[in-house]
């Protein structure tokens, strides 16, 4: 397995609270890696570190061997040009039409002629089945269409790494499955390294090649999907079998908490 991204000893804090606790893992090139975990386990924070939006307290994140945590803004922007990110709410700029949104990275980072950019925008929108919607504003689109438009924008500069933050969140099962299929298509056609942060099990089973599972800021599992299914770790079993967490305190403690002393 060739490593595309390596994370080593990543520690991060929100105030005094430690959110990620000494994470180390590698993300394989050309495959779909799913970062899995319950709500509040730190997976969105991890994603923000991977795309260089947050600076960790300690640790390194290396893209093709280059550590982005010690880079200056200019160098980091060089790496960012190789990344595409689809945010949870698609994060399209509401003041611009769909085609301007998709064209934005090209206009900012390339010297292409406007006519070429327009052709490329139409190609990207066709890729996500949004041909003909060029002149609409994000507020005129449904949730699923916004995500696909966000994906078209993420794909604008033909990135080497593609990140998805909760792609199925807020979508109905049919639309979510459509998006999963699109992710698989992107992997097969463009051979991209794809990183998906999610907690949706059906989606994980459909797209994942490699899984990293987080629990309370620790990586409790790294391996293939089959290894995940075969794991006998209690936390993983609870997650896969959708078992609720039992209260960790005794009845006496419970009484004391309710009584408030």
């Amino acid at each position, binding site marked *: 397995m060739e490593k595309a991204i390596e994370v080593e000893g990543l520690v991060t804090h929100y105030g005094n609270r430690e959110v990620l606790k000494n994470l180390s893992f590698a993300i394989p090139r050309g495959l779909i890696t799913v970062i899995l975990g319950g709500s509040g386990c730190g997976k969105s924070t991890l994603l923000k570190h991977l795309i260089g939006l947050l600076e960790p307290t300690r640790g390194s994140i290396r893209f093709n061997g280059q550590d982005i945590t010690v880079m200056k803004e200019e160098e980091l922007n060089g790496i*960012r040009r190789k990344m595409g990110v689809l945010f949870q709410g698609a*994060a399209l*700029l509401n003041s611009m039409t769909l085609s301007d949104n998709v064209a934005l990275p090209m206009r900012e980072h390339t010297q292409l002629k406007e006519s070429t950019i327009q052709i490329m925008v139409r190609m990207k929108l066709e890729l996500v089945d949004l041909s003909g919607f060029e002149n609409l504003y994000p507020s005129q689109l449904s949730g699923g269409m916004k995500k696909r438009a966000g994906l078209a924008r993420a794909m604008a500069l033909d990135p080497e790494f593609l990140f998805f933050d909760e792609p199925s969140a807020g979508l109905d099962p049919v639309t979510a499955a459509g998006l999963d299929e699109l992710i698989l298509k992107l992997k097969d056609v463009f051979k991209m390294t794809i990183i998906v942060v999610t907690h949706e099990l059906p989606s994980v089973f459909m797209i994942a090649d490699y899984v990293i599972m987080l629990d309370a800021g620790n990586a409790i599992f790294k391996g293939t999907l089959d290894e995940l299914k075969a794991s006998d770790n209690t936390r993983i079993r609870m997650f896969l079998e959708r078992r609720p967490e039992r209260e960790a305190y005794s009845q006496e403690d419970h009484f004391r908490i309710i009584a408030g002393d």
Partner: protein
Amino acid sequence: MPSIAENFLGHIGRRFIPIRKDIHDASKIINDIFYWTFLSPFKGKPIRFKASISEMVKTGYNAVPIVGIISLFVGIILALQAAYQLKRFGALIYVANLVGVSITRELGPIITAIIVSGRSGSAFAAEIGSMKAAEELDALTSMGINPVRFIVTPKLIALMVMLPVLTVFSDGIGIFGGFMLSITVLELHPYSYFQQTVNALLVKDIITGLIKAWAFAIVITTVGAYQGFKVEGGAEEVGRRTTSAVVASIFLVIVFDLFFTVLFYYFT
């Protein structure tokens, strides 16, 4: 058991730590705004010209009616108030001096700045705040586009151009308001009022007003942007920050006005 002195110092420390963070954030934003507006264009990162024009329309052109009406009324009020005292001395013609000088040196710039704070300062904070809440700022950063350069610089350029323009417009309309009142209610002769105004006004009165307007443009944009970037939560926080943006920018406009007035009093 901590002593009273330790408690007191601890209390000051706990109050000071968040303020220190605010000062740090504010200086970072001011630094970014100045870098991306005045330095980076010389390093091959051009200003977004079209966006600046569209901001000029929103912040400047669209503010013309309200600035016009308020300036007209203030001109009339000022002439009436001046006449109230001056007529006791039979010096009604000096209404022209008072209206002309106080509007160009003081009221034109400050009224325009307060109206623009209310219209555009709040809009900047709300726009940037909602963009932050919707992860649009993160999206820009992840595309390698600096949010300050993309969003704030066009607004700053627009206000630095349009606030002085609006101020000149406000000066003109304000003086016109005083003129209209004087030739009708006060029955002054139009030509002598005009002459009196021209004689009373110095070029430096208008220039100092414009320098103030230019500084107010920077204050209003910076405060609006700062409050917008500070939004952490959702809609409620956007509302709170928008209010703070208006209050803080009006306050700072007055503080800077005091500073420049003192400066011009001694050095012009």
